[in-house]
């Protein structure tokens, strides 16, 4: 085991937590991520492997499958993100490569993203000040790519529905955090 200590995206050793009017925003460093892109001509087989992994249907456009331990959301045509707890899946990309074989291109994505969990009553009001998505129409299991203050993000509605997960570019973690907390303070 190597001896380098990881840092959270906000540069802390421990994840950051903010609470505004009962809504919490938590930096979540425990998520391993990898993208799965079907190889041309292997689309069906790739979906099959993904379906087996998720023990059910694969996510369609705009959707996530909130399965444990591996979950997934749709990123683009024949392209998905797979996430899992990093404690058990630090080598997620390698695991997926084994599973998918030559049916998909797998890319390590864990450190490309910062993950924030926003939970509580009123999260919709905060999101309305951030992103041009119809948050009221988003149900548990919906996943949308959108923009928060120039930063491309994914917003996922989790279970329970008072829980949103926001994935943003890791290098902009601080700016995204600032945008989210500012919106929470303005809206809540």
């Amino acid at each position, binding site marked *: 085991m190597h001896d380098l200590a990881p840092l959270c995206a906000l540069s802390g050793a421990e994840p950051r937590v903010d609470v505004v009017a009962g809504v919490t925003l938590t930096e979540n460093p425990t998520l391993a991520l990898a993208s799965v892109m079907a190889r*041309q001509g292997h689309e069906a087989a790739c979906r099959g492997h993904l379906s087996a992994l998720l023990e059910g249907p694969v996510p369609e456009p705009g959707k996530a499958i909130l399965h444990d331990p591996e979950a997934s959301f749709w990123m683009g045509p024949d392209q998905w993100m797979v996430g899992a707890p990093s404690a058990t899946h630090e080598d997620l990309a390698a695991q997926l490569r084994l599973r998918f074989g030559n049916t998909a291109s797998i890319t390590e994505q*864990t*450190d*490309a993203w910062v993950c924030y969990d926003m939970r509580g009553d009123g999260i919709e009001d905060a999101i309305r000040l951030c992103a041009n998505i119809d948050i*009221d129409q988003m149900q548990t299991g919906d996943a949308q790519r959108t923009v928060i203050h120039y930063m491309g993000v994914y917003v996922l509605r989790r279970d329970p529905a008072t829980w949103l997960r926001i994935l943003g*570019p890791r290098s902009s973690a601080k*700016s995204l955090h600032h945008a989210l907390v500012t919106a929470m303070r*303005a809206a809540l």
Partner: protein
Amino acid sequence: MTQKNRLDGGLIDRSETFSFRFDSQYYKGHKGDTLASALLANGVRLMGRSFKYHRPRGPMTAGSEEPNAIVELREGTRKEPNTRATTAELYDGLRANSQNRWPSLKFDAMQVNDLLSNFFAAGFYYKTFMWPAAFWEKVYEPIIRRAAGLGSLSTQDDPDGYDKGFLHCDLLIIGGGPAGLAAALTAGEGGARVILCDEDFLIGGRLNLETYAVGGMEGAAWAAETVARLQAMPNVRVMPRTTVIGAFDHGIYGAVERVSDHLAVPEDGKPRQILWRITSKRALLCAGATERPIVFENNDRPGIMQASAVRAYANRWATTPAQQVAIFTNNDDGHRTASDLLAKGVEVVSVIDTRADAPTSSDYDVVAGGVIDQTWGRLGLTRIEVKMPKGGIRRIKCGALGVSGGWNPNVHLTCHQGGRPVWNEALAAFVPSGTLPPGMTVAGAATGVFSTHSALQSGAEGAKAILADLGIKASALALPGAEDTPVRITQFWHVKTAKRAWVDQQNDVTAKDIKLAHQENYVSVEHLKRYTTLGMATDQGKTSNIAGLAIMAEVAGKAIPEVGTTMFRPPYTPTAMGVFAGRAWGMDTKPTRLTPSHTWAEEQGAVFTEAGLWLRAQWYPKPGETHWRQSCDREVIQTRKSVGICDVTSLGKIDVQGTDAAAFLNKVYCNGFAKLPVGKVRYGLMLREDGIVMDDGTAARLAEDHFVVTTTTAKAVQVYRHLEFVRQCLCPNMDVQMISTTDAWAQFAIAGPNSRKLLEKVVDDGVDLSNEAFPFMACGEITICGGLSARLFRISFSGELAYEIAVPTRYGDALVRRLMQAGEEYEVVPYGLEALNVMRIEKGHATANELNGTTTALNLGMGKMVSKAKDSIGSKLSERTGLNEADALKLVGLKPVNPDHKVPAGAHLMTKGTEVIATNDQGYVTSACYSPNLGCHIALGFLKSGDTRIGEIIRLVSPLTGVDHDAEVVSPHFVDPEGDRLRA
């Protein structure tokens, strides 16, 4: 002060008394007042001065169409110039000051302009101020600019925050009067997602301003009850203080919610205003109508107002501009004002009706067929003179005159996508045309149906039809009973006079100006507007445009619709610029991207610089270093002598996979990639389709079907977009998959002769870094520090033996610390962008300064890289003759002849002995630095036929910065031209 003109009743809250100040005087008002209503209640009519002639002015309206009563609201950093007193909500402690006057509102020295008005006729400035020519900027214009503008800015940073937000709905209802409320009830009860916006702080529109009964109760009470019902519906969002400012494509509306403008200071963390972008499936415009004036001589004195405004002040705000009021009207609605005022105990001295068949009244005096001939009162109306129908003048003492020239539907938003309203002769008004913004319908007075009953009905029916269109079933609303008075109007636009009668009050455009414009052939409505400035003031002609058109029609002998109508454009009312910016200002203008070593670099005291959105370490000063050059030189020297470390994470990284990945790269790079072996990196030049260099970088082949492509920091987004274009649009059948991994990997350059030794201390056992096992341009996946997966590339930007190592970003901080620790014995230095730049110039490597979007591979000395043996993007158009001329620019190195001289970037190159003029220009310097290794300044630049001019002494000129000296043309590779160090 007593509120001497305060009446009984109204919708103000007398339980809350606010103290406020206008200019130096303190007054009292109540919650629910506007600044204008509170001032009127205190007997103040004079609130402003006009733009050109500095005429004394009071409020003309009770709403957002106000041209006259505009003030500087608040003080200090929160000062808001040009604020309409008629919409500014009163709060305790409010401060406002009059504007565009000196020294005081009552005595304004600039009113001398009024006496000289004969000289200031429309367009006068186009005919004069031309002699002598030099006097314009020096004499005339400074005088004009001294008089420019209305209010003044604080000139200090706005202390308040703004937000932008996003809303989605089935139906957006714009305006909460009877039509809007009936529509909202219908749609809300039908289950549609509804947003109801109203610019007022009290929703209800004219229901709050009138005495009409609705459903057996007072109109205002019905409105309040209805609003409460709507607010209780989860599918309805009721938004008071929210102005819909623009109708944009595909059902998108901009709306500004004034969250905190009714407070002295916004609450902590809360915005002053929010710009909502509303995405609607349908919109129903229920914006009501605006009463227009009749134009007559001296019709601009404080106290002369819209008749409907006089009754609005009486009914809603329980105030009157004066105890004795006269009315001037051409329609029945003017009489409504008279009866409302009487009911409030205000004396109606006379109703002058232009119509010979005017209705009579037993309650007040009516002059049928009379017109206003003249008015008196310097700072406020004291007397009117009426031209009687049978001749003769009647003088009437009064402090206010309500004028009613009929009503204009508020069609503004219907025009935002090019629709032009059409003339309705019966109403004597423009009404919305059939060409509306797609998805919009119009109801209520905005369509020209003016009775309360028909407004309620058209709102309800409009909503029902929209819901049916959306497939939502709505039941018919049980309409409450309301008045259904027909419109009776006889067109009458202005009382003819040889003197001045104001059409556009704020900009001081008179009927005479319009006639002059006609006389000079500025007849087209747009010429009229631009020549006279009619309709260009802060009210955008809401009360003046139609009268102006009517007068032009009359002098041109045309019908009004033949003269045309003017376009209304966003915003509907003037809108604070800050709200469009939202939170994007100051340091938050754009997001900031931080490198993985940022925290560590901060600890080292690094100085940072912007590179695109990234913050990158520019240099790392050591104690005692007082100038950046000292740090930079040290970093360069130490790196070339031993070893240095630089965070290069910001370079774009793209994962390219698939069985056709190599063929794909072969297509996008002008040089060959098909045969690059696994475990090797290659430099690649990417062209735009027009043959100009887009970007350069490297591609590392990690596996047969797996490459990692790097881009420059600046072009990462553009290159990715381009690659997706090629992949999806030009090579749709290639098996290629791509994803950006820029943020996923922390990447560090380790450069210098000791870089291998340093690296050997952190790589795991079994990783062979020897030159044989891992030669220049090798790459591979390795483990370090006891098992951490990493990618290693033997590439060099500095020209030294160098590597770039990448680890998952979360370990970047730990890795840089470990590398620094491991390098202690070699006196390793971190180096920043400055040192990086020096080393790459010394090596002759191009960067953004050279890849400036106009340079070709040929210019860069890499013309041979453009393969003719294959098709790649840009290769064909790079063959054009103009890009391959004999004297084409070539990248060269430059050294000063006098070693003390600089070779500054941006200087131009001239052949010795030629005149320093543009036609002799031979090229320019792109990048320059001091080279601590060569001990002099050096530079890269482009020179015509430069590759054949090595050794030539050339003249370097920068007249802009006072440089003119000689430089020697040399090879761009100042350091290690053979590349031995790279391969060591």
